[in-house]
């Protein structure tokens, strides 16, 4: 995406109606439109943090660079929603909806939460290796995980 195509704040809010977007998190969602998962990284101490904050919690530097992460990691938390907020493609009656928090390979304790697609529920286990993929939600890209090797 060229610089001229950077979406307006109004467009971001429209594309991601389910997200609480603010000035600190807009770079994260702008990245999603390009199918890139970018997390705030401190330009000084080089530590990532998430969710996006206005300063680096490790060194208080305010020079933060939204930096692409691989999206590869290990399932750290895993639950299955038998009911929950409505979303396109989520049918709680059909099957419990998996929600996982993945510890990313870039940094210990750096985690991202989404769902896992393309596998049986019993394969979604803490410790399983996953990688990033993208699905469509309300016409915009939405980051999800797949088990490594399940593509």
């Amino acid at each position, binding site marked *: 995406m060229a610089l001229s195509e950077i979406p307006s704040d109004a467009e971001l809010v429209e594309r991601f109606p389910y997200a609480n977007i603010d000035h600190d998190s807009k770079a994260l969602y702008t990245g999603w439109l390009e199918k890139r998962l970018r997390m705030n990284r401190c330009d000084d101490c080089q530590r990532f943090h998430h*969710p996006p904050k206005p300063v680096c919690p490790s060194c208080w530097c305010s020079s933060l660079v939204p930096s692409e992460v691989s999206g590869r990691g290990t399932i750290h*938390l895993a*639950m299955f*929603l*038998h009911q929950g*907020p409505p979303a396109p493609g989520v049918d709680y009656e059909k099957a419990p909806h998996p929600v996982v*928090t993945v510890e990313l390979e870039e940094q210990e*304790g750096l985690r991202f*939460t989404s769902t896992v697609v393309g596998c049986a529920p019993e394969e979604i286990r803490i410790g399983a290796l996953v990688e990033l993929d993208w699905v469509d939600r309300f016409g915009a890209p939405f980051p*999800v995980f797949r088990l490594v090797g399940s593509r």
Partner: protein
Amino acid sequence: MARNPIADEVAIVGVGSTGFSRDSGGRSAKALACEASIRAIRDAGLGPGDIDGLVGAAEPGGPQPQEMSAALGLPQVSHFSSPTPVAVFALVDAMNAIYAGSCDTVLLYFAYTRLPWNSRSAAQDPFRRRHTLGVMPAPESVNAAAAYAAWASRYIHEYDVPREAFGRVALNARAGAKHNPLAAMKAPLNMEGYLGARMIREPLCLLDMDVPVDGADAFVLTRTERARAITKSPIVIHAATVGLVGTNDEDQLPSLARHGQHVVVESLRSKSDLWLEDVDIFFPYDGFSIITLGWFENFGWCGPGGAGRFLEEHWDEASGRVMIDGRIPVNPHGGSLSEGATRGSGHIREAVMQLRGDADARQVPGARNALVGCGGFFFNSQGAILRRL
């Protein structure tokens, strides 16, 4: 010892409650708060002119302090605030305001009302359904309530804990509620019933979650010195604290071995002359069963991952509940799981009633000291030790 100049200097001299139900029958949260408040002020033998501080937990749908002042006709208030839930935030604010001299006597109130997102019947109520959560979140979140199911999965993974460990928390609560006239959920519950309950956020089921209710609790607090003139049995706050770690975003929490509960326990222990060996009743919060297991482990009743086994070892078959060392009951009022989702005010109320000797069928003979672990892991961990002077 940490500095704790406020130890035993502030007392709870009045208690009032509406009791809790799945439906208050068309009464507003403000009406419930007023009823509990009037009961608490009368229980203390005081009147509206004696109240110069007003602290009300900022529960969704609940009344603001200025609305309560107007409704109750309090002539003059020199401190008021509405701390975020859960209950000990408000207790600490009231205590500090009195000790610092901002005011002398506080009415502390907590009003709960079922809301459209946690009650189907509330979603049908034309008044209540106008409350919204704002942006409808995506399901792929472990924020707020969902965090406890997510971290329960980690707890089960790390310690190989069976569902019965969680079930015993629910069974203990229900056994207590049976003897509590204020409680919402009194139908008998056994382990088979727990294991058969429907999953909500697996691994947690319906009975691992507190029960949304309508109702209110209120308390009157004043200086201990003044309390002695008001009542022969002032219940004092020996120590109270809240606790927070830096990385407290739910999915970024460092681990189950380091969160708000650990800070609370360290802080409380360093402020208190009393500890586990002195405790007569234990009140671990149970907004979710996993929180209760956490409090058992983090207070040091047992080691990490050992709470389920501890509950089994200290289970009293005759009464179907936990009795630590055969002596110390746990949430004898039924907790949030069975009395109703009081976000901790029920635990504090029961502690006061027990320490006063007014707990009727639930009374622990000679109870002098109560330990309260309130709130969860992320941004509402808190604790208090109450004692009878």
